[in-house]
């Protein structure tokens, strides 16, 4: 018989060995060696084995002895989830890696807009759900110890018989807490993996598998005498027939499958500690194989135990008591170590996972809230975080210990495994909804989780304490507060269901329904929508969508904060890398949205998404994404469109302007040519009279004996020429005065006919019968009030032009007056050849003369007309249509020009 002291020594040696292995693994990882082992799929698969706790190791046999094959559902569900790794786990792992998720609470909070409230709820639920489970592990260790301590006490196996159970449990709890603190909080960044813990867990996985297989092989071939005999024995035993209710079978399979995904410790090893996504596929068959081997010998051990051991033996301890009863002390020792391993590895990882959640989602937010400007103050947040995590570890193990002490290691603990599964399975709708459905909202998750949690408490956890402890018998019979439909084991009056099935079905289905319905009717905020898109489409674009829009964050502030969370060296390396990426040789990087996003994610690896988000928000200021930002993004494209259409309009305008400029340029060129032409013309015009004047005045001066008649003729020539010169100069002067606006109008009133009469008389003076004038006296009987002299000047000019330039055989000028309500319009149209089209544009310019037309004018007449008409408030233009040359002049309707 093994003495208790021997056992304790073996135990301590084993634990020391574990410490050593963990320590070596940490050191090797630090030096970058041993990667093949630390990062191998084997270790990953073995670390998953923390699913098989002492509940598996001891409890499965007890379970089988009580309920037959039902125990196997606890492993079938997870096996199915592993076989279906492609659907859910692959997605979870990818999200966990790309979002740097630290825990299941972090995953859910991160998905639903980094909501800290949600993280707190999930954390509390996880602690409530898992604490009894930790107590169960402590109990199993103490129970197994007690068997060695008091072998005579095997019948009945009174808890703690022979040893001080409370003290033993305390020592175990302290040892586990020490290990977890030492190896679980060495580095802050959860994504850097806890190599020591993982390796220790892997070693323990091997130990418990070997132990259980050894006991099984001993039982089948050593005790029962072979496989066939064992089978006969099984069929002959009291659990010889399959007798599991279908509803329980299905419900437990589903529940355990859900628990694999939702248990914080499973999430920790499966997602957070995952090194390589490829390991998942290996684990997808290797882990079911592990579970198969773990459960393979459960029924034989149970049957043989029931056969050989005295009536009333605790079937939960058959794994230990069978070898002991057969005198196999070594095997019993191995078996004990197996159970011890199962318990310790579970407690370590579960505590680690829970403490991360508690410190990230409860302690850190409180700490941050207490120090409003905390993130930028001096002081090492790193130490705070690590301290928070260590305290959380102690708190959780302490809670487990308290639970164990208060429940007194009662039989109720045996069912706690299922109950614990039921509690954490409530995360499932929010989790799966979050990674597959973009429409899932924070409010939906909150409502679903809360309702599921409440139902679980009411239908599963509280009844587990037994009748009349928490819930009175009256509640079971007449419902909560006398409401008949609120009975913990018959909700809505539906009776006859197995309590577990009842609880699982109601809590999960109502949870999921409320989650979906509330999600359908609520609207997510922008951060939620961004995160939702990233989670659901994690395989489409693994790159993070832009989050932080503000760039007011000082790089220095960020640097200070990062140093205090990540540690100075890591933070500096991170910033330097980012600066290099941005193209700075040294110095701090610009706080671009991308950089801030990356930094937040880095921090999230250390303190969780919600806390990291809050800390960065303190520095960057404001929320990361507002509706305005999203609108701004949308606006950008709208602005681009508008801008391009503006550009189009501008370019159209430009081309129009260019065309106008070309036109103007053409006109200018033409004018310049005309000016040249005019200059030669005017010099000619000036020269001709000057020459005559000079010649005739020389004759008059020098020649002797000129006849008086000749003298008079010569003098009159000189006189005529002088008049011509004067007229030319007058015209020029007139035009310049008109153009400079210095003219004063002499406004008078007279009928139009009189003005026309005078003008025609003046214009045709000395041209008898040369031009026939066609008039309509009736229409001309209009009173005019304007500068009649100027208007007459225009008329004279037009009539004189017609007389001069009309080359028709019988020149004729028709003057038509039209007056409707609008302006007074007078057309002067002759029967001549008209003006060439290219000349039409410039006939009103100064110095214009139609080419090839003889005449005495200097080309100022029409220009003067144009100026006069403009001064009078009307206008003149050429009439292109019609037979001959036509001009139209118009006067304003009131004919109060210039007044």
């Amino acid at each position: 018989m093994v003495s208790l002291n021997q056992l304790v020594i073996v135990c301590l040696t084993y634990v020391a060995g574990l410490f050593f292995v963990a320590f070596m693994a940490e050191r090797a990882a630090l030096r970058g060696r041993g990667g093949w082992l630390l990062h191998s799929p084997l270790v990953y698969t073995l670390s998953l084995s923390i699913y098989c706790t002492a509940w598996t190791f001891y409890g499965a046999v007890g379970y089988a002895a009580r309920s037959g094959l039902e125990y196997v559902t606890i492993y079938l569900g997870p096996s199915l989830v592993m076989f279906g790794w492609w659907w859910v786990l692959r997605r979870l792992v990818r999200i966990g890696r790309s979002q740097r998720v630290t825990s299941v609470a972090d995953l859910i909070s991160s998905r639903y807009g980094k909501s800290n409230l949600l993280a707190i709820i999930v954390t509390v639920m996880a602690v409530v759900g898992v604490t009894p489970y930790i107590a169960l592990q402590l109990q199993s260790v103490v129970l197994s110890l007690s068997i060695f301590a008091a072998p005579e006490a095997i019948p009945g196996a009174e808890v703690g018989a022979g040893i001080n159970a409370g003290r033993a449990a305390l020592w175990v709890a302290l040892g586990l807490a020490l290990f977890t603190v030492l190896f679980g909080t060495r580095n802050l960044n959860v994504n850097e993996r806890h190599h020591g813990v993982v390796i220790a867990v892997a070693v323990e996985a091997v130990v418990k598998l070997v132990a259980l297989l050894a006991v099984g092989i001993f039982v089948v071939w050593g005790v029962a005498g072979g496989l066939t005999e064992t089978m006969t024995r099984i069929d002959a035993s009291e659990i010889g027939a399959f007798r599991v209710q279908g509803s329980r079978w299905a419900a437990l399979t589903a529940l355990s499958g859900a628990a694999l995904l939702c248990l914080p410790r499973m999430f920790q090893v499966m997602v957070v500690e995952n090194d390589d996504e490829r390991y998942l596929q290996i684990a997808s068959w290797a882990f079911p194989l592990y579970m198969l081997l773990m459960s393979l010998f459960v029924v034989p051990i149970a049957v043989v135990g029931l056969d050989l051991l005295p009536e009333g033996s605790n079937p939960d301890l058959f794994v230990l008591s069978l070898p002991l009863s057969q005198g196999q002390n070594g095997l019993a020792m191995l078996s004990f170590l197996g159970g011890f391993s199962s318990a310790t590895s579970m407690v370590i990882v579960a505590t680690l996972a829970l403490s991360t959640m508690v410190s990230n989602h409860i302690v850190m937010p409180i700490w941050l809230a207490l120090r409003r400007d905390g993130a930028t103050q001096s002081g090492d947040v790193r130490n705070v975080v690590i301290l928070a995590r260590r305290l959380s570890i102690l708190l959780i193990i302490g809670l487990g210990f308290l639970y164990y002490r208060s429940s007194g290691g009662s039989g109720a603990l045996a069912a706690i495994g299922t109950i614990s599964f039921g509690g954490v399975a409530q995360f499932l709708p929010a989790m799966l909804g979050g990674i597959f459905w973009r429409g899932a909202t924070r409010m939906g998750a909150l409502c679903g989780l809360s309702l599921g949690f409440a139902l679980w408490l009411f239908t599963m956890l509280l009844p587990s304490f037994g009748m009349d402890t928490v819930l009175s018998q009256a509640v079971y019979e007449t419902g909560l507060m006398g409401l008949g439909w609120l009975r913990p084991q018959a909700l809505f009056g539906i009776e006859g269901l197995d309590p577990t099935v009842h609880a699982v079905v109601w809590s999960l289905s109502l949870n999921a329904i409320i989650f979906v319905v509330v999600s359908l009717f609520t609207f997510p905020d922008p951060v939620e929508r961004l995160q939702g898109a990233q989670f659901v489409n994690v395989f489409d674009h693994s790159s993070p969508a832009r989050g932080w829009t503000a760039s007011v964050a000082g790089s220095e502030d960020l640097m200070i904060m990062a140093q205090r969370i990540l540690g100075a060296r890591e933070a500096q390396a991170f910033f330097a890398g980012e600066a290099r990426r941005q193209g700075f040789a040294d110095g701090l990087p610009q706080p671009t949205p991308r950089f801030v996003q990356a930094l937040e994610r880095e921090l999230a690896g250390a303190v969780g998404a919600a806390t990291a988000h809050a800390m960065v928000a303190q520095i960057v200021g404001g929320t990361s994404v507002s509706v305005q930002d999203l609108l701004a993004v949308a606006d950008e494209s709208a602005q681009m469109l508008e801008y391009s259409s503006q550009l189009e309009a501008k370019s159209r305008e430009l081309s129009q302007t260019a065309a106008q400029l070309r036109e103007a340029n053409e006109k200018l060129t033409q004018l310049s040519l005309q000016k040249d032409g005019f200059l030669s013309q005017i010099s000619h015009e000036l020269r001709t009279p000057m020459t005559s004047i000079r010649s005739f005045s020389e004759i008059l001066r020098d020649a002797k004996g000129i006849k008086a008649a000749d003298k008079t003729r010569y003098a009159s020539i000189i006189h005529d020429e002088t008049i011509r010169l004067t007229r030319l100069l007058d015209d020029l002067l007139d035009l310049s005065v008109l153009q400079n606006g210095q003219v004063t109008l002499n406004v008078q009133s007279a009928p139009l006919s009189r003005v026309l009469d005078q003008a025609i008389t003046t214009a045709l003076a000395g041209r008898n019968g040369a031009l026939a004038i066609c008039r309509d006296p009736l229409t001309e009987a209009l009173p005019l009030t304007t500068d009649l002299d100027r208007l007459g000047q225009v008329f004279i000019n037009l009539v004189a032009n017609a007389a001069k330039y009309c080359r028709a055989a019988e020149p004729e000028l028709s003057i038509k007056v039209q007056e409707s309500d609008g302006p007074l319009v007078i057309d002067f149209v002759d029967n001549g050849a008209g003006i060439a089209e290219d000349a039409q544009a410039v006939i009103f310019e100064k110095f214009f003369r139609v080419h090839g037309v003889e005449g005495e004018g200097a080309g100022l007449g029409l220009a003067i007309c144009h100026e006069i008409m403009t001064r009078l408030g009307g206008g003149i233009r050429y009439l292109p249509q019609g037979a001959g040359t036509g001009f139209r002049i118009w006067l304003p309707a009131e004919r109060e020009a210039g007044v």
Partner: protein
Amino acid sequence: MARSPIFLERRSYRVRRMMDAVRLLPVLGLALFMVPLIWPVPSDDPSETMPMSTALEYLFGAWMFLVLAGWLLWRRTGAHAADPASDPAAKPPVTEAR
């Protein structure tokens, strides 16, 4: 992304069908594991029972079969499955011939 051709080379076709099998394996597993639902339960009719040994053989057999299937599929698809662009539908087909 380049538009993938409608028909694939034999090898990539195989890989895709193997990935289909990976995806369907849990469905098969569910079907196999839910077979006990139709087994007779003594409480219904005490005369008809499913012997424990048969039940054990069936369940562990099915379990082992699924493990082996998962292992075989891993051998066939391991290089492709966990590739970042692992969705064979989203992945341009492997073109090199062997």
